[in-house]
């Protein structure tokens, strides 16, 4: 027969100071873990939202990042004539040659400067991404020294807001608009016109990469294979989606760090939980004896104290999730070595991260409760009743 859970709940309530303190300790541990998971989740979301399922990013053979790739204009012509390419309204093959550069500007988090990607592309390239310009701004015009910035850039870089002039390449560039690409990572980029920016980056003969779109899913695979098999062309074709998803690894150092801290804190708080539960067991020695006299088995005593510890940890877990909740949606930035520049993203406290946090709390509670509970179960009836 099991001891009702209400008994444990009442015990927790009676000793409310101890309960709250222990639960808070576990809660803070859980909060650190949830925040860490929310960071990784947010980063993953940003990269997952980037890229079109039918698009292929073409880089130079041997290169795995746009920044250090170069594709010749001849290769670009061959690419455009490949069968299976999608065609836009104007009847042109959907292929966007692009040039990448990195510039350094002070951001709100790093006043000493943080790296930003500058992407030079044509209107055709803009059309291949799901972006719109925010009201009050406009796209860059060809022949003008104008750029547009992603919404994260506008938010985080005081020197790159609409109307500002950014100095890179051979002179100044005016920011004429802010674009919104949903949750995509390109929100952290600055875009300018292909030829204009390209000549400033000294790249008239080659481009960094070419983005192409296949007509349909069937053509996609054939196109993808034909590009990678074409030895003469010498390119490395990557699925755009995968290319961005891989960059989630930029968060690896912080993830490692957060997990390390959470685990160390968990050891500390499981000790604390153990202390609290031992105290509960010794305070209730008589009660335990009474329960045994009433016919509750050792097993149900063990189970009961374990449940109490889990309940305590659960309260802590919920507490931790609540503590971590306010960081949901907070924007932060992280450097990606693939682009050598910053990706801004929002923390995401999702249901799954919260469940992970609560499970973590329960593990702490189980570890903390196991020994005290078995200690309680082992008590001899007579000695227990005699204790004061």
């Amino acid at each position: 027969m099991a001891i009702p859970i209400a008994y444990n709940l009442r015990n927790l309530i009676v000793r409310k100071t101890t309960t709250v303190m222990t639960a808070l300790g576990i809660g803070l541990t859980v909060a650190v873990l949830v925040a860490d998971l929310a960071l990784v989740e947010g980063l993953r979301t940003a990269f997952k939202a980037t890229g079109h399922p039918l698009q292929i990013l073409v880089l130079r053979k041997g290169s795995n990042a746009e920044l250090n790739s170069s594709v010749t204009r001849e290769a670009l012509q061959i690419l455009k004539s490949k069968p299976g390419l999608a065609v836009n309204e104007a009847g042109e093959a959907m292929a966007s040659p692009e040039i990448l550069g990195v510039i350094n500007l002070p951001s709100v988090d790093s006043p000493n400067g943080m790296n930003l990607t500058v992407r030079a592309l044509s209107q055709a390239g803009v059309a291949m991404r799901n972006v719109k310009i925010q009201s009050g701004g406009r796209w860059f015009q060809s022949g003008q020294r104008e750029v547009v910035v992603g919404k994260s850039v506008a938010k985080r870089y005081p020197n790159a807001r609409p109307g500002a002039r950014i100095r890179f390449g051979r002179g100044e560039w005016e920011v004429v608009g802010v674009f919104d690409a949903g949750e995509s990572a390109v929100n952290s980029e600055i875009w300018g016109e292909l030829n204009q920016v390209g000549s400033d980056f000294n790249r008239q003969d080659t481009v960094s990469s070419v983005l192409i779109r296949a007509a349909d899913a069937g053509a996609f695979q054939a196109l993808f294979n034909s590009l990678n098999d074409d030895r003469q062309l010498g390119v490395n074709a990557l699925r755009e989606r995968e290319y961005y998803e891989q960059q989630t690894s930029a968060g690896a150092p912080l993830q490692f760090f957060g997990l390390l801290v959470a685990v160390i804190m968990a050891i500390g708080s499981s000790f604390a939980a153990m202390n609290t539960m031992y105290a509960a067991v010794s305070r209730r020695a008589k009660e335990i004896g009474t329960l045994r006299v009433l016919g509750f088995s050792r097993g149900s005593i063990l189970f009961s104290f374990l449940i109490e510890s889990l309940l305590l940890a659960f309260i802590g877990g919920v507490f931790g999730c609540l503590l971590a909740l306010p960081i949901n949606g907070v924007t932060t930035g992280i450097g990606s070595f693939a682009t050598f520049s910053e990706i801004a993203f929002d923390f995401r406290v999702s249901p799954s991260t919260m469940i992970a946090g609560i499970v973590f709390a329960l593990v702490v509670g189980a570890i903390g409760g196991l020994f005290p509970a078995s200690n309680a179960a082992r008590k001899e009836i007579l000695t227990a009743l005699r204790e004061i």
Partner: protein
Amino acid sequence: MKVISYLPLITKNSFRNRRRSALTIGSMMVSLCLLVLLMAMYKVLFYGAEQTPAQAVRLVMRHKVALGQPMPLSHEGKIRQVSGVKAVSVQQWFGGTYRDARDTRNFFARFGVRPADIFIIFPEYEIPEQQKQAFLHERTGCIASKALADKFGWRPGERVTLVGDFLPITLELTLVGIFNEPNKFEALYFNWDYMRESLVASGSRNPLQDSVSQFLVQAESTDDVPRVSKAIDDLFANSPYPTKTETEQAFVLSFVSFLGNLKLFLLAIGGAVTFTILLVSANTLSMSVRERIREVGVLKTLGFTPGTIFGILLGEGMMIALIGGALGCALAWVLCAALRNATIPMQQLRVINTPPLIVLISLLIALLIGLISAMVPAIGAARRPILDSLRHTG
């Protein structure tokens, strides 16, 4: 002070419930160890490791805005003219791929340098004379830092092939030497001239003709450093290639922002940890005082004043906290040693250590936590009337 004479009593009391004391100390130990680690990390990431004298006078000059955008070689002569400059050399970043770029382990810094200059600008590099001579004379030779050589198990004679990415060449290098360097950075140096010749031979348009990605500048003395860096940057401020010249340490630390807003994370987590320890120790101490209410009553009937009882209980809190703190510092010291030798995604942490100041601060924090958390139960126990205490059961 009088309380000192009660030390045996305090010690005895601290360990009357051994299991609880052990758990409390254990809990404080891990938390304080974490706090020490956080502070050590903060120091390494934002203040860097101890600078060697050679490091303190070394400046890195790069393009002000565009990372990796090369600067004209003609800058070199102009830098030499700046007073306070002792030596100038070039350093060319070579991205490229070693083995498989998908494995981040294969990512390390590779620079083209003038072999003769490298040992002038980096006098702290220790390398056997024979290996140094080999690097000076073998055009396809390269040298690696010990950290890098150890990572891949390289020995002199190892073939290192770097496939270029933004540069359309492949460098076939032979490791001719391994140098010791205090910061445990992973770096490979090869002959800049060999790279330039390969570029010419490749026949493609050379994006690096007459230009280089970074200049290394050595100042006469540390006093000259701020002036030299400003003088150089002013010199090129209005040229098409504005520059940013900073100490090597500042340059390296600027990459910390790449890890995200760590400063805030470290502070937030440090705060959470400190608060957690406070909760844990306050909780245990009040538990142990609560158990002893009757005993305190007995002590009072024996003539102990409320002040003495207050002092004894505070002493108990501080003793437990101090033991936990000291053990935590010891554990942190061990963990730091482990981190220094581990392969972890944060290269900066390879020089992490626990300086005395951080240990001292942590012990003070521990003491303070012991004091604060013992305060409330101690006041309560000291104030409780004797009869009330003696009547207490529980």
